């Protein structure tokens, strides 16, 4: 079966955020309502963008970025969620097999039951996507992220439907199809944008990390949209999975050392990752 993918055309997105709402509704993720009723004051932080960040129950959010480019003010919207990389660092470092490459669709699947909450995926993701929920002290921590609507009993893809976010999009800013087909469409779109004067228009995701399963049509360079320009598979992830972890299993004592080492490496990797900060408003 051919790999499936989502193509997000930022130039068609009106940031209506139907996708953001339906993602929670379909996947039964509670909304973070920082309401007064819950004892937490609700908050607008000087932006249309909300909630502030991805979270265990926010797998998808639309970002808003004001800037001046091509000689005028613009408002760029972007879709932030799991990119479903072909070379997925999270899968590589996952010690329990909870994260895996789905053979049917090519996406990065996740079996929550197997997740031990170790957090390596969080540390190694080049796009800063996975989030941890629950309590570390009680040992009930779990990771959470977009699984492209393939949760057991809520699996839209197996039922022959497109993901909920794609279904809800009124402008076809989101398309779901065979990855190869979408690549051809995206290339046509970017060429059209360049012909229209958007000289920096970019097709993002074709080659990055072996090919993403969420690809982007942008009217400028990826950094303007808050995307890493050249995301890399972290070398430390390879070191962890292929060398340190087996060694650890063999030499029990080393595991602890490995963990410590990994922690240090991951911290380092996280701090040096070239992900631009949120661009909306400081």
């Amino acid at each position: 079966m051919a790999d499936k993918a989502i193509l997000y055309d930022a130039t068609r997105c009106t940031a209506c955020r139907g996708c953001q709402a339906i993602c929670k509704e379909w996947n039964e993720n509670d909304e973070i309502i920082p309401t007064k009723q819950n004892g937490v004051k609700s908050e607008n932080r000087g932006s249309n963008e909300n909630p502030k960040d991805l979270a265990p129950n926010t797998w998808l959010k639309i970002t808003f970025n004001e800037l001046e480019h091509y000689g005028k003010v613009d408002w760029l919207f972007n879709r932030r969620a799991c990119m479903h990389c072909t070379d997925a660092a999270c899968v590589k470092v996952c010690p329990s097999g909870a994260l895996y490459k789905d053979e049917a669709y090519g996406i990065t699947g996740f079996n929550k039951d197997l997740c031990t909450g170790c957090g390596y995926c969080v540390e190694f993701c080049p796009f800063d996507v996975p989030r941890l929920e629950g309590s570390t002290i009680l040992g009930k921590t779990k990771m959470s992220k977009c699984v492209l609507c393939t949760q057991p009993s809520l699996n839209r893809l197996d039922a022959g439907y497109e993901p909920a976010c794609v279904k809800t999009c009124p402008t076809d800013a989101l398309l779901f199809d065979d990855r190869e087909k979408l690549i051809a469409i995206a290339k046509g779109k970017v060429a059209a944008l360049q012909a229209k004067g958007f000289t920096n228009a970019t097709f993002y995701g074709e080659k990055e990390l072996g090919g993403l399963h969420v690809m982007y049509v942008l009217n400028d360079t990826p950094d303007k949209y808050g995307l890493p320009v050249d995301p890399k598979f972290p070398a430390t992830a390879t070191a962890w999975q292929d060398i340190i972890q087996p060694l650890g299993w063999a030499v029990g004592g080393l595991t602890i050392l490995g963990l410590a080492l990994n922690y240090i490496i991951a911290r380092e990797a996280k701090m040096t990752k070239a992900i631009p900060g949120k661009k909306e408003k400081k």
Partner: protein
Amino acid sequence: MTNHWNDIANSDCILVMGGNPAENHPASFGHIMTAKDRGGTLIHVDPRFTRTSAKADIYAPLRSGTDIAFLGGMIKYIIDDIEKNPGNYNMTYITEYTTSPYLVNPGYKGPAELDGLFSGYAGGLNETDAAKRTYAKSTWAYVNDDAGIPKKDKTLKDPNCVFQLMKKQYARYTPEMVAKTCGTPQKTFLEVCRSFTATGKTGKAGNILYAMGTTQHTVGTQNIRAYAIIQLLLANIGIAGGGIQAMRGESNVQGSTDFGLLYNVLTSYLKQIVNTDTTLQKYMDRITPTTKDPNSANWWGNTPKYVVSLLKSWYGANATADNEFGFHYLPKPHTGKNYSHIALFEAMETGTIKGLTVWGQNPAVGGPNANQERKALEKLEWLVAADLWQTETANFWRRPGVDPASINTEVFLLPALNSYEKEGSVTNSGRWIQWRYKAGDGPGEAHDDLWMMDKIFKKVKELYTKEGGPGAEAITKMDWDYGDEHPDVHKVAKEINGYDLTTGKLMSSFASLKSDGTTSCGAWVYCGSYTEAGNQMARRDPTPDTYNIGLYPKWAYAWPLNRRIVYNRASVDLDGVPWDKEHPVIWWKDGKWTGDVADGGFPPINVDPKATRWPFIMTAEGHARLFGSGMAEGPFPEHYEPWESPVKNPLSKQQFNPAIKVWRAAEQGTVDKYPIIGCTYRVTEHWQAGQMTRNLSWLVEMQPEPFVEMSEELAEDKGVKNGSRVIVESARGSVNMVALVTKRLKPFLIDGKTVHEVGMVWHFGYIGLAAGDSANLLTPHVGDANTMIPEYKAFLVNVRKA
């Protein structure tokens, strides 16, 4: 809408003004994107750079309330260009289909001569005497020939022809004047003119999309008149991808308007009966237009058929020729008296109105000058609110800052069902009446509107029958039979469609309605929606139309007569051949019209000069009106400043609309205290007064509280940081909101002076999951001179740190 949502995809250029479809009509943007995919241009004119602007090819900022200055500038640009390059315009359309060649009374004078006023004004410049703020319109008239038909000069050279009079008035609207008045950079303004005016070429289609940013002004109706003038000069009315589209803010607001929601009309836009209409005949004579032109269809000449059929629908067997079909049962508003939203709340405050039923509305949040309106509710003896949730209006008696013990109003809340919990029709902006089925049961004791209305009606009828009272017969004689337990919605729909009372069969078209009492019809434009062939509104056949322009004639039903594009007779030349053969709406072939349902069905002008009728069948002239003599403040739109404005009118000495009613002169803010322009609007995430969205956690999460958008320049002036709290105040009230400091709002340069504008969302209130101040605490009780729609979009405020 003249056209419909899908048809937007056929446009070569879309001008969105006074609207924000990306945020407030999100689904429409799919059609706009399709037009763009096909090479179309999107222009957005708005005080703020919004999510719509972000998708536009051209964004032009303009100061709130200066639309006519901008549009007048466009009219001047077009008229100048028509004279220079007539080959770029459809001159046949302009001279044969519009009133541009009509000669006007030589006594008529316009703002170019009278410093902003038109001839016939009772008062002087900036008149303050309310009785004199009105026009005698005798000079706003055509010159007729001996047969009583208006004289025309098809060369458009006569100085008294409509075309030349327009030219004279708009000569003052130069690009410099537009820049000086609107704050729009000249270069951007001219770019808009060039792009949109290019659709004047035969075969090109330009579309105007508007919403409340156009209408909610003291000159709201004239703003739309200006669109009409532009679209007629560009031959854009009646064609695919053209027209003027009112983007409705609620799914069924078109339907509610069709059914006489407004105080000045009955169902299907029949004019309201008033107390001076002492007989049915007098009423019908007053509201039925006449013409001496044998080639004018003058469709409204059929008015008596629609009126009598409506009375038969209401009073059934009780309506007979002998009792003027029950005409005298009806309550009759006082002539000249205003019963609009503002007027009702003013009357509540003075105690004239004692009881109020608020159905799916929340004026405590959505009404202008909301402090006044909340207070006015206190004067009521009783209030009934029907809604899905607890609303601010139903809870006005325990709003912050008041003592419930001091309020004696008895309040009832009727829990209602939402649209998915009941069966019925919804009419969209494009006049498509679409039948919906019930998807599920509602909670608790919630009932649908029809059930509630039926129960209330029956109880009121019982009481009137027992006790009598003024106007009792209006209720007791009413023909009301939709079933005993739950009223049958199909019975209602059939009654709306109407019956041939002789045969008992459902009517198939309003063309067969009669004025002798042998037919009934609850809303003549809906006649044909539910026929002997079945419920036409429930049709779901996606077969394309003859010319495949997206009409889908077998999907649902569009009024009138399933016509998808109104005024479509103007889409063809004098021989009935489409101007745009790539997108034909109708086409005269083999002795008949093909394509969409042709307006009136008369043969083309050259085919049968005798039997033909001019294409604009709804005007008495048969031609599209460029000269609107029925308007309150002048036959052509003229720029006046909003009631509250920091700017002296650059175009004339008349500061604001000379014909508006000023309700609360003492509450007019002055520039020294309130130097900043305020504007209110909605966002994607919330719906109107918030009843339906401020209780939905997903939406509350995305937009948790009210905010005020301001430029970086103003924020720096006021020492306001992004995300901090500010107080915005007007002469009516003050609000506390989060400051959203943005590059997307820029100060306007008006005649060399910096003028700031802020924008606020108005969805919020004190009930529900998300609470906060409504921007309507700031808005004034002042409205349009013709419709009294409130001015929500331009008023004066000040801003300070909280």
